[in-house]
């Protein structure tokens, strides 16, 4: 656990260690009040730190390697999951996973970007960076869902679409564009959740929907703070400033009218309590889904068009 501690988590971890040590001594001495005081202090410190996170710290939390990933949500939240593979054109992209599942009584098609947890699985998942096949697999399965009137749930968690030679050759841009085009008119409900990193077109490629939900400690923008820093400041050193300037947190996006709802995370972040995180998201997904299922298809698709039509700020 201790190997993935972020800088701003350190004072909390230090206090927690102290409490642990004191507990070990407790047998011989009566220090229960001291422990209680310290526990109170930890809670206060936690609240203090997490209420005042900078945007860059949120980006770090969004990338925390112990956060639940798409497959964790699928396995913990749904039953009878059947993973479906391949784009029927070129191959199977492991950076996007998809399949049919039961969210309690609801049949759903779940599609999400998948990162790995160690070097080996990260190489297998290509660090959550899709090639065109990933987007085309997602599209194939969305059309399948549409055919059988199954709602679609997508989960965004990617540092970007893969910027590789082969990806370009096989039409990365076309694959993403096609998804935006088709998702905007898909005749079943689509709920999009940003569960980690929402980096640019690579994330948006499965991100057009009727409801856009965003976990509290995630980011979503047109570019990563690091790349933004390197282009606008001509140095990788300005990532904190770039994160501030890009206004890329869940609160920011709610304010900008892009996100509909923020999903609260356990104190300290989603990685602190997978069970709580998953059950929170599950309850909200069900609630959102049940509301969308009440809409007539024509109305659903019209609303979706109008939703994205409203996004943007300009002066006339």
């Amino acid at each position, binding site marked *: 656990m201790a190997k993935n501690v972020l800088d701003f988590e350190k004072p909390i971890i230090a206090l927690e260690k102290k409490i642990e040590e004191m507990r070990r001594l407790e047998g011989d001495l009566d220090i229960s009040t001291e422990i209680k005081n310290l526990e109170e202090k930890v809670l206060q410190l936690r609240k203090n730190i997490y209420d005042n996170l900078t945007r860059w710290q949120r980006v770090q939390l969004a990338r925390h390697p112990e956060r639940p990933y798409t497959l964790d949500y699928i396995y913990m939240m749904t039953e009878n999951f059947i993973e479906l593979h391949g784009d029927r054109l070129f191959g199977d992209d492991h950076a996007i996973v998809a399949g049919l599942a039961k969210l309690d009584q609801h049949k759903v098609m779940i599609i999400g970007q998948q990162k790995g947890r160690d070097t080996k699985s990260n190489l297998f998942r290509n660090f959550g960076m899709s090639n065109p096949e990933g987007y085309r697999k997602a599209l194939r399965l969305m059309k399948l869902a549409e055919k059988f009137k199954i709602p679609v749930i997508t989960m965004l968690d990617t540092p970007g679409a893969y910027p590789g030679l082969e990806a370009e050759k096989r039409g990365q841009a076309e694959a993403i*564009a096609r998804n935006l085009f088709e998702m905007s008119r898909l005749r079943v409900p689509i709920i999009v959740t940003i569960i980690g990193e929402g980096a640019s*077109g690579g994330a948006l490629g499965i991100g057009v929907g009727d409801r856009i939900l965003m976990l509290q400690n995630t980011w979503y923008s047109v570019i990563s703070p690091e790349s933004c820093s390197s282009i606008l400041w001509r140095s990788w050193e300005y990532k904190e400033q770039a994160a501030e300037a890009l206004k890329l947190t869940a609160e920011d996006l709610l304010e900008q009218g892009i996100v509909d709802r923020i999903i609260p995370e356990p104190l300290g972040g989603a990685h602190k309590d997978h069970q709580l995180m998953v059950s929170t998201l599950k309850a909200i997904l069900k609630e959102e889904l049940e509301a969308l299922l009440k809409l007539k298809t024509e109305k659903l698709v019209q609303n979706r068009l109008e939703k994205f039509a409203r996004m943007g700020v300009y002066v006339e």
Partner: protein
Amino acid sequence: MGWFTRKKENISPASKKSDLPDGQWQKCEECGEIIHTKQLESNLWCCAKCNYHFRIGSDQYISFLFDAGSFRESNKKMRSGDPLQFVDTKKYSERITATIKKSGLNDAVKTGMGKIDGKKISFACMDFNFIGGSMGSVVGEKIARAIDAAYEEKIPMIIISQSGGARMMEGALSLMQLAKTSSRLARLAEAKLPFISILTDPTTGGVTASFAMLGDIIIAEPKALIGFAGPRVIKQTIGKDLPEGFQRSEFLLENGFIDFIVSRKEMKEKLSRLIEYLT
């Protein structure tokens, strides 16, 4: 998003201060030929010797594509609202004001309606001169409205792309313009109205990953850079030099992503014929 790194190219021939005598002559970047501005203009800003296509702006495209005097611009005054009050080494609002002054444009796209051989068209043309032709809220909204105009008037839509991608200074709002424009094109397609996408140098990033790649017909000028990721980023990723001609029009044609390559001089005629087939 490559406009910052390709500063050298960020100058249109129209505004280029030539180092050649009296500013009436320009040098072809491809073959080095020295060409008189008048001759260049009459040749639609293509090198007579090697057919290199000089980068031109929306006004020039409008001048040779549309029947004389037929083009009417819409939403001319729309400007960025600087929604994030973005600041990097400079304030975005100041960048906008300075660029408006320098370019004479209000943002990176011009939209409107005109006639091509008597046939009414809804049209959008991007300008690389304006912050690298980047797409923020204004570009997205103007293109969406132009598509709606085609939808309402039941006429074809043509877009000329020339862009480094989505505009960083409007953050996620820029990203959402990809979805906004693509969804309007989807509705246009449902009405069975044609959309022709023309790609010019460069068309990369979020513009390629949305409307530029969604044409019923997609055509490109010769040797235009077209791709999702910029060449510099790809080179960094794979750690070696990119093959000759990678991400150029001819490469996309070979890989099946565009219908054909069109020389600027034949563009109007080809468009006119396509429209006849598709309407």
